[in-house]
């Protein structure tokens, strides 16, 4: 605890942090790796492992130097599939979708926009550039009825199942 306090105090004054300039060169840094004491790092590592068991999937953002890979969810509802992607801060026009051979592909580009170029950016964790994600749907989809909406930074894609793929109730007749 004491060491964390010290860290915090040091960050108050730029002069006491000779390395602060070099830190700025790193485009993305997992925030937890920067200014915690070793014990906190261990704790966060443990949390990461716990999370792994919680979700059954490795946390996507632990890959430090990967390109932008927006989080994708796939849900199976009775008569449709729902795919959602976290794409904060995009323009609708910059997102494109295609559906072919049972595979939905979403791609796009997030452009960096800033009105005035003057000044200094000293924390830059957001990713700008291109991305592409594909997901294979486990059952038939009526391609003509696929619908997408972009709301609050999340792209929602509705893919109605084809008639053959819908679950059917089969009556058992007793004779």
């Amino acid at each position, binding site marked *: 605890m004491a060491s964390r306090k010290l860290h*915090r105090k040091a*960050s*108050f*004054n*730029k*002069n006491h942090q000779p390395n602060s300039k070099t830190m700025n060169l790193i485009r*993305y840094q997992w*925030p*937890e790796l*920067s*200014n*915690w004491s070793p014990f906190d790092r261990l*704790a*966060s590592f443990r*949390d990461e492992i*716990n*999370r792994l068991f*919680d*979700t059954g*999937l490795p946390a*996507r953002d632990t890959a430090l130097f990967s390109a932008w890979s927006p*989080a*994708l*969810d*796939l*849900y*199976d*509802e*009775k008569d449709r599939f*729902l795919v*959602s992607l*976290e*794409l*904060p*801060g*995009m323009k609708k026009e910059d997102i494109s979708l295609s559906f072919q051979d049972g595979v939905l592909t979403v791609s796009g580009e997030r452009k960096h926009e*800033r009105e*005035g170029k*003057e*000044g*200094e*950016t*000293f*924390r*830059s*964790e*957001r*990713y700008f550039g291109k991305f592409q994600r594909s*997901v294979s749907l*486990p059952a038939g989809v009526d391609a003509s009825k696929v619908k997408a909406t*972009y*709301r*609050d*930074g*999340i792209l929602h894609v509705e893919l109605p199942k084809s008639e053959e793929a819908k679950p059917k109730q089969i009556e058992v007749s007793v004779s």
Partner: protein
Amino acid sequence: MQSTLTKPEQQTQQQRPAGNGRANFLTPVANIHEDKDGYMLEAEMPGVTKDGLDVTVENGELVIIGRRSAAQPVGQALYRESRGWDFRRAFELDPSIDAAKITAKIEQGVLTLHLPKAEAVKPRKIAVS
């Protein structure tokens, strides 16, 4: 050069999941840009609307909390990468920031904060007579 100016160094206060009974929070990724008039902070919080947003300044600390409003789909999750957790991140504020003039907006899951510097600390050109 900027000997007395401090920058709002980020301090992550991600709450610890499971075990201590506290809620889980995700740390939103953020960009901070400074120019002579102030700072601009952008934080990515997909799924958060204006209503779920909570921005507070207390004791020189800026805390942003974003709660996701969208109802989770009712179907069965076949594949899931997103974590449905709320967002929280704290920043230390540069004392030169005029806290009363901070403005915030959220658009397509990106929170943009403008943190203007107080008039007294802005660079001023002094005419030589």
